[in-house]
């Protein structure tokens, strides 16, 4: 029954001293799915990922990875996971190719498999020409590609990606997206965090929105959009006196204007015609995210 659950978290808790980073998180990841873990800074995303890798002890609840508790995560389980960490922790003292080679050794890969994997991954991530260069001379995008290649060295069934495209140019992001789609097609399970909602919408089958260490809601991107923000967003300048609320899934006062989220754009437009200053666009995951987690800054 739970055989195809790659990750199963139930009431997961993590406290750092007295600070509760994760407080009762429940979600699961089926084989072959791409699940996006979305949340503002400090929501508990990276901590959750570290717990899945056994890099962080759990304070309470249950967390099963490949059907076994992470409490004593086995070598075998770890060899089925590839991690793309948020920080660029490539080895600066050795070359691009050597970074992959050394990592393969950590997984005790045989020389034959290792050299095949290195060749395959260098071309998969378009790094063949850079293989003899030291890591320090790579651009941000290349470093990120190398980190992804490194995470794939053991041919993992589960790939965990912590903000894989943060800070990259559009071309690099596009290449990484294409590659992640290919990984999905190969049947791998992906767990992704990102602050780019277009990225999540494009790649993820399932979205889990978390904040303050708790799940706010989860579902497919389409479901979540429909549930919280309908199909279209109208931004209407204040002041105006319209009874738009009854046509809307949700509305929100953002100061100078009001946002109306609706499934009936034509009706809303008819009401608005000639009376108010407004603009509109299709609703997206970012609207859902902001509805769920609010518009206030989080870094403090």
């Amino acid at each position, binding site marked *: 029954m739970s055989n195809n659950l790659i990750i199963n978290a139930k009431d997961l808790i993590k406290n*750092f001293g007295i600070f509760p980073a994760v407080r009762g998180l429940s979600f699961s990841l089926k084989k072959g799915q791409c699940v996006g873990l979305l949340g503002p800074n400090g929501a508990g995303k990276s901590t959750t990922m570290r717990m899945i*890798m056994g*890099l*962080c*002890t759990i304070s309470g609840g249950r967390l099963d990875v490949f059907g076994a508790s992470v409490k004593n995560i086995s*070598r*075998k389980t*770890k*060899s089925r*996971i590839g*991690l793309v*960490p948020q*920080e660029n*922790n*490539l*080895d*600066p*003292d*050795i070359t691009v190719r*050597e970074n992959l080679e*050394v*990592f393969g*050794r*950590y*997984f*005790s890969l045989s020389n034959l498999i290792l050299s095949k994997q290195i060749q395959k991954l260098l071309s998969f991530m378009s790094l063949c020409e850079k293989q003899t260069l030291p890591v320090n001379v790579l651009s941000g995008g290349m470093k990120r590609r190398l980190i992804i290649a*490194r995470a794939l060295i*053991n041919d993992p069934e589960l790939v965990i990606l912590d903000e894989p495209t943060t800070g990259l140019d559009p071309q690099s992001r596009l290449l990484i997206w294409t590659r992640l789609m290919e990984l999905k097609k190969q049947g791998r399970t992906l767990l992704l965090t990102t602050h780019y909602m277009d990225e999540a919408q494009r790649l993820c089958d399932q979205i889990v929105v978390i904040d303050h260490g708790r799940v706010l809601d989860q579902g497919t991107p389409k479901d979540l959009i429909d549930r919280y923000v309908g199909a279209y967003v109208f931004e209407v300048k204040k002041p105006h006196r319209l009874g738009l609320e009854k046509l809307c899934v949700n509305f929100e006062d953002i100061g100078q204007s009001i946002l109306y989220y609706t499934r009936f754009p034509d009706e809303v437009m008819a009401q608005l015609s000639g009376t108010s200053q407004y603009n509109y666009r299709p609703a997206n995951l970012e609207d859902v995210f902001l509805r769920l987690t609010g518009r206030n800054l989080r870094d403090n």
Partner: protein
Amino acid sequence: MVSFFSTLAVIYRQFLVWKKLFWSSMATNIANPILFLFAFGFGLGRFVEVMGGVSYMIFVVPGMMAYSAMFAASFETTIGSFSRYYLHRNWNAVLSTPVTLAELLLGEVLWASFKGTISASCVLFIGWLWGGVESLSGALFCLPIVFFSCLCFGSFGLLATAYAKGYEFFSYFFTFWVTPMFVFCGVFFEVNKFPDFIQSLSWFFPMTHLVMVIRPLTTGLPIDLITILTHGSYFVVGGLVAFSLAYFKIRLKLFD
């Protein structure tokens, strides 16, 4: 269980880096003893004709061997390990693979011991050319002992790394751990020339035990196996204690 292959993989990474820096590493390993032996052998040797029953040069070569091994091993698991852990976040990357923390740390200490032994070998080579080694076979027998002692020195370095919050912390380590071993543990002078309380303090440091074992060996003086094993057990116990403390502290720091 500690896996041999995982530990070897950690060492392999170090080896790869060392291979690139081989010549610069050798240049410093060779130049250091030349500078020291020149200064102490010629400089001090002119005023001190005999120490411990042998010429000063013969006296100081095993001391320098022990010191440079200790320094190299300590440096590797402090500045070296700390940089990999703190600056490059290399440990985080390693630990996301099947390699365990115990294997990672063991690899660090084993590698430090290798570097310490290389360093001592260079001193031995220069000291031998200089005429400061009476028994070459005894001196070669020193090298595995030096390797063993470096497991202890490396573990103490790792313990400092476990508690370090920044590079500044290591000035304590070098001032209160490395320097006393340089001056109070029989490297340049006989330990029994010091006041009693310094003497008892000096036996606390593993360095004194190392010097006590390798000095008779390079000078060809008699030393029995029991003495070697007695001093050797000090490295084992000290090393195990330091390694365990370092392991638990680092585990707490990384995983909690």
